């Protein structure tokens, strides 16, 4: 991977950040549904509305508001939560690690599920095993995250008592234990997407001439599969994996609600119920920036796996 590519890719991310901020700002400030009256209810007095508008800076012209928004963002200030009365930045900083832990855990589980299953399905193409794996994953794709969560929760936590019903631990081991069911819930649909893509990728690569050549060289089967087939089939899957991180974060919002995990997803839902606009705005912004950073990393990993990508 050349330094050039790295620099170009890093430079591309700045306009994206700027546009993300424009969209989030427009979302909260220009859509019908005024935060102040939503906050105070329809029977609010004019003074009360004016006071809140003053406090949130909502009485200034829109472009000025946007400049303030930009300035505050670069100072790490996302405003204060209306309900919890603390700064949004500190709220997000305290809750984000939980969500990141959950998503990373889920991503690892999804890969651990998808890769061997895809290998098995591709190598035994059109067999009963392939059929069973594909049917299983098709059902997994059609199941909403919250439903998988409720079923796993009832069966493995409430009935069998193998896992805690919810919450989050204090040590790393406890975290793993507490978050296993939620992570599995979240991993399910991602692993289905990855499995399908990887299976087709492996089948395609198996037909490539360099695989025939590797076999003709007399390489052992495991070496051919690991070094030649899987590595090449994984390139497209890595891109798909990156693209699906957003979906995974969206799923985390639901999973955290089902399992009562104190992450940013649950914070988002709570803020919607409480009409806590600064928090919703801050969270949307943070998650979008996070996803664009993941895209950056995905591109770099892809360029590492397949150097031709960087030269394009």
């Amino acid at each position, binding site marked *: 991977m050349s330094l050039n590519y790295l620099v170009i890719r890093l430079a591309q991310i700045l*306009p*994206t950040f700027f*546009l*993300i901020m424009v*969209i*989030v700002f427009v*979302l*909260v400030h220009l*859509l*019908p*549904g005024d935060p102040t009256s*939503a906050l105070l209810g329809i029977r609010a007095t004019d003074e009360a509305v004016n006071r809140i508008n003053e406090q949130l800076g909502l009485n200034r012209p829109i472009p000025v508001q946007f400049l303030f928004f930009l300035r505050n963002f670069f100072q790490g200030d996302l405003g204060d939560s209306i309900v919890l009365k603390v700064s949004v930045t500190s709220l997000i900083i305290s809750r984000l690690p939980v969500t990141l832990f959950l998503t990373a855990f889920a991503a690892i589980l999804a890969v651990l599920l998808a890769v061997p299953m895809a290998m098995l399905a591709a190598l035994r*193409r*059109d067999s009963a095993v392939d059929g069973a794996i594909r049917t299983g994953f*098709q*059902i997994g*794709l*059609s*199941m*909403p*995250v*919250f*439903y998988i969560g*409720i*079923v796993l*929760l*009832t069966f493995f936590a*409430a*009935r069998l008592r193998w896992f805690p019903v919810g919450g989050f631990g204090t040590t790393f081991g406890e975290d793993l234990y507490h978050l296993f069911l939620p992570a599995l819930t979240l991993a399910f649909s991602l692993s289905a997407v990855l499995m399908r893509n990887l299976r087709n990728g492996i089948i395609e690569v*198996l*037909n490539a001439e360099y695989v025939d050549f590797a076999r003709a060289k007399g390489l052992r089967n495991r070496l051919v599969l690991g070094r030649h087939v899987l590595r090449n089939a994984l390139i497209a899957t890595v891109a798909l994996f990156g*693209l699906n991180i*957003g*979906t995974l*974060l*969206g*799923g985390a*919002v*639901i999973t955290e*609600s089902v399992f009562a995990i104190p992450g940013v997803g649950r914070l*988002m*839902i709570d*803020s*919607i*119920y409480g*009409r806590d*606009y600064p928090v*919703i705005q801050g*969270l*949307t912004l943070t*998650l*979008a920036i996070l*996803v*664009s950073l993941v*895209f950056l990393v995905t591109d770099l990993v892809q360029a590492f796996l397949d150097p031709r990508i960087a030269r394009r």
Partner: protein
Amino acid sequence: MTAAALPPGILGQRRIRRMGRGRKSLYIGIAIMLVMLVCAFFPEFVAPYDPLAFDYNAIMHPPSLAHPFGTDNFGRDVLSRVIWATRIDMQIAIFCTLFPLFFGTLVGAIVGYRSGWLEAVFGRLVDLTITFPFLVIVIAIVAVLGPGLLNMYIAVSAVGWVFYAQLMRADVQVQRQSEYVAAAKVLGYGEARIIFRHLLPNAITPIIVYWMTDMALDILLGSSLGYLGLGAQPPTAEWGVIIADGKNFMSTAWWISVFPGIAIVLAGVGFSLVGDGIADIFRRRR
């Protein structure tokens, strides 16, 4: 052994077997869709009870002949609620995709045909849209507009059209190079005629297939928002809402949540099978 290394006879047999299975799953998909459509259009004839009627003599009864899916904590018949919910969830599938389907296809066709600066602007728009986790941006829009089905449709439509446009643009860009477009240009046809009469019908297949998948995804999304209290509002019977209703009774009355969940899975599988089947048929034609 790879397919390429097999003698042609075996390969032929294999292809026939695969084709047979493709057709079979398409028929299963169509059957599921038909059942769903009957439930959505005529719930009053299919459902044995009123989905909203309380019956204090039949609270949380397990599945029986009188109530095949049992009853909930208000004595409402779960089967009837699941059947009536089909109407709402099919509505979600249609209303969430109608605007994206038409608007996205139109924009994609124009951008793909014209290219130039339009394409550059559109490219940035696509990059930006995929940066926002779909569920998060939809939830954020619903949060600002207020919970409810109508606002959910608005939120999903506002974001969803980009994916149709992206797909259509890619296809039109390929088709633009083909001979029939060159022939149409030589004949002196206008841009609009080339786009709508020639390019669109030839590039529409992936869009139809994606539409099926998208409807399945929107049912998942709609029920998720219903579950979170941001979509359909209780006491409306919607699959996600019913699951949320029964969630607290999962260990004592599993039937309240389990059956609507199965309905969601069935709907998803049905749409996917039909989508895959259509894709298969068109692939074979080419």
